[in-house]
């Protein structure tokens, strides 16, 4: 009798679990369906690729529009902005548990900081020199 009831209980449990699974599955597939049409499950990679491609176009045009007289400051300023890699260093130092990762992050942070300050300041110094004829 006891055995029986346990078995029943187990059966019920099984069925409950199965039901639960079914519901969950259903919910999932509904969500999936909605997503497919709305593009909600588009891999962020595709979006990033689009952003990357468009940014290359923007870069192409924006750099061609730089006047040749300012090509040296351009090199300095692109160097400064490419140090935005500092965000990676900040994550490593700010969140990381592992000592090694923190160490690597710290080195990256220092190097990037040299570039950021050095790059922008030297550009500023250069640009301050470009003057119009005073009349």
């Amino acid at each position, binding site marked *: 009798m006891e055995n029986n009831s346990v078995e029943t209980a187990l059966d019920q449990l099984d069925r409950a679990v199965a039901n639960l699974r079914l519901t969950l599955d259903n919910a999932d597939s509904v969500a999936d369906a909605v997503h497919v049409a709305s593009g909600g499950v588009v891999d962020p990679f595709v979006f990033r690729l689009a952003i990357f491609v468009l940014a290359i176009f923007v870069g192409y045009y924006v*750099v061609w529009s730089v006047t*040749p007289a300012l090509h040296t400051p351009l090199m300095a*300023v692109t160097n400064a902005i490419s140090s935005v890699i500092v965000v990676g260093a900040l994550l490593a130092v700010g969140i990381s548990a592992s000592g090694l990762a923190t160490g690597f992050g710290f080195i990256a942070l220092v190097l990037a900081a040299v570039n950021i300050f050095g790059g922008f300041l030297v550009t500023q110094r250069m640009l301050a020199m470009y003057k*119009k004829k005073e009349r």
Partner: protein
Amino acid sequence: MSVNLASFLYLVSGVLFIMALRGLSHPTTSRQGNTYGMVGMGIAILTTLALARPTLGGFFLILLGLAIGGGAGALIARRIAMTSMPQLVAAFHSLVGLAAVMVAAAAMYAPGSFGIGLVGAIHGQALVEMSLGVAIGAITFTGSVIAFLKLDGRMSGKPILLPMRHVVNAALGALLVLLIILLVGTQSYAVFWLIVLVSLALGVLLIIPIGGADMPVVVSMLNSYSGWAAAALGFTLGNLALIITGALVGSSGAILSYIMCKGMNRSFISVILGGFGGETAAAVDDGIERTVKQGSADDAAYLMANASKVIIVPGYGMAVAQAQHALRELADRLKANGVEVKYAIHPVAGRMPGHMNVLLAEANVPYDEVFELEDINSEFAQADVAYVIGANDVTNPSARDDKSSPIYGMPILDVDKAKTCLFVKRSLGSGYAGIDNTLFYKDGTMMLLGDAKKMTEDIVKAMDH
């Protein structure tokens, strides 16, 4: 901070970087552009801090890092001589490259902090992006170090041509691909560091065969590389600011390399394959006796003082001699005498794009007296004197007239059209391209042999008499 807000702010900082480059389209907007760039960087940093919410210790560490690096950077920016800009840019690129490697290493050891998985279970896609970032970063690092050493004269500019170098480089490249595949499979630290090592070696091997004088193209190319490395890591970290910036910097470096190669009328491939411009070639000796008219500072002073229009053509020698301030004095003197003075800049005069412009700006020459080749080339015919100071290749008529010349097709400044052409240089030697300049032997040319700065100062003095 919500990730949506953070992503939006990263987008804002990317847009600010675009505005920064956009500002450089004209000197008057350029300073504002630089400010946009700084604001963009500030936003990116603050956003990351708000997102990472570091512990107090972490926060202290971050401040420390920023202080050390920022202090060093600010010091360098204040101290550096304008003539050392090519070296400085090369050195800075090497830092970006190394930083990229270090960030990738941190991501490898603590993937959780970057949300790309757990140690030993990093997403495959993230690993591929990361290895691309680390490989390009490492190549940028050692490549830029070599470029720095060559530009700074700490290493001979002579191309170092190892035997079978193309085979070795191709083999290393293939090895790199294999290692990346292996890394995705094994996630092993050893493989990661092997990738770093191979890339570091590749960076050295790719750059040593390139002559010192070709370094500007290399620096620009490495600038482009550092952009692509940043973009690759941007994909790993899912960071919009990094992706946008990487694409901007990547394009910028590529375009500047292209402009330089076009200005020299050489193909990018021939530059990268190396072996050019290390040593000056032997002077052409075609048996014809050639005479050179040599002049003194007094002769030059007389000619210029009596001219009504003088066009100044600066070149690499002006940078070497640091003659820009003396030159400005000379021009002031001439203008005071009622002489019309203009500056003509060849797109590849000097050793980096815009090199001459920055030096002239340093000497307070107003930018509206400085003209690009296409805007002034027709004016030489009306000029009484072309004062060529330390320039050589960019005036060589064989680029225009002699089809057999190695620089044939490169646009040149038509200084030979001026009534008199004054040439300031130390010898009858050749310039970067190692080609004899037939202009030296022309009737209208007067050679002023000597150091550019000294000679210019002497001319100013001669005018006082």
